């Protein structure tokens, strides 16, 4: 997808998120626009960086890193961006994504049903593995440091 097309889709998703942000989180559309524009600009900058820098790093990595740097305490843009972000609910951004995902899943329902029970079993194991793996290390280090 070209950078221009990506930008276009982001604008559409941005508008939807603004509506969801209003309905679900009572943030007015006008007051949330600066925050949403910042998110779109950061995202499009990340896409452009990934396209024009020859090292193969995914655009999402650029996007997250860029957003981190711009909001790091003391960086001139931090205060302004943080204030703008207060009006853009994190959860409001997730709803349109899952709506697209829900529609798209329709075509995979048969494959999903076939792999279905296996994926469900696997998911449970993945969740437990991630959680207990982290808990074991945290427990060990905290004990070593004498913090528990």
């Amino acid at each position, binding site marked *: 997808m070209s950078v221009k097309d*990506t930008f276009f*889709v982001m604008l559409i*998703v941005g508008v*939807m998120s603004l509506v*969801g942000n209003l*309905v679900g989180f009572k943030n007015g559309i006008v007051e949330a626009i600066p925050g*949403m524009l910042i*998110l*779109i600009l950061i*995202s499009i900058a990340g896409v452009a960086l990934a396209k024009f820098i020859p090292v193969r790093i*995914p*655009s*999402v*990595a650029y*996007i997250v890193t*860029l*957003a*981190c740097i*711009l*909001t*790091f*305490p003391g960086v001139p843009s*931090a205060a302004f*961006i943080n204030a703008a*972000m207060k009006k853009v609910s994190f959860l409001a*951004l997730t*709803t*349109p994504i*899952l*709506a*697209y*995902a*829900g*529609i798209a*899943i329709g*075509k995979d*329902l048969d*494959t999903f049903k076939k*792999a279905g029970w*296996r*994926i469900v*079993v*696997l*998911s449970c*194991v*993945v*969740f*437990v*593995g*991630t*959680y207990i*793996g*982290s808990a074991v*290390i*945290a*427990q060990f*280090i*905290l004990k070593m*440091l004498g*913090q528990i």
Partner: protein
Amino acid sequence: MKNWKVHGIVLALVIAAELIGILQFKVGVGTVVLLPMLYALIMGIFLSPKFLKVVNQKDMTDAGSLITVTLMLLMARYGTLVGPSLPKIISSSPALILQELGNLGTIFVGIPLAVFLGLKRESIGAAHSVAREPNVALIGDVYGLDGAEGRGVMGVYICGTVFGTIFFGLLASFAAAYLPFHPYALAMAAGVGSASMMTAAVGSLVAMYPQMADQIAAFGAASNMLSGLDGLYMSLWMALPMSEWLYRKMYAIKYGKAPVKEVAK
């Protein structure tokens, strides 16, 4: 991309889901939290030709091709959550940082199980991580979401969305009740990179240890921000290579031959 029917439907789903809002209630020892994104997902699935027949094959393909882009705005928002708390994270205890490596624990149980269950390259997408938004975005970027790896990561992602929050809430309750872990360790482990899963696990822990509520919440949130920060790099540089390696080993054990080389994208 210019399929206005799909965009219109999504807008309607978003409004309906947000109108229902966040629902929260207690079940046994845990707390169950239902978020609008869950309703949007389920309603979207019910529009498919299998059920209500509102969308057709082309609409579904169009919607699928847009997911990678829609995730980007969320990733940017993610970065703005992590940036401001970076100094706090850097100065916090080594336990918080090192426990992140525990997130790789899923590979060693997940990949062998996936291959044993008969999954092919779906295994890599499904078991390399807990499959939250950054991981889906990453798999989409590296392999494409319409391939086998994409199906794997979307499968676990969907399971996580449908019952992950409930699962983590109960998992934390059970671990605290029956396993020899300190609540702080369980709180740090809760930050797997999903705000809703972390909230559910921390919610359960707080309900069980009200006198430690503030510490538990702080550790959970900090760990979750850390996962948001390092999760992507850890997946890219550690989890994916490890998954690829273990997949080849496990495949050779199960089928007695090396996996057929996939055509590079």
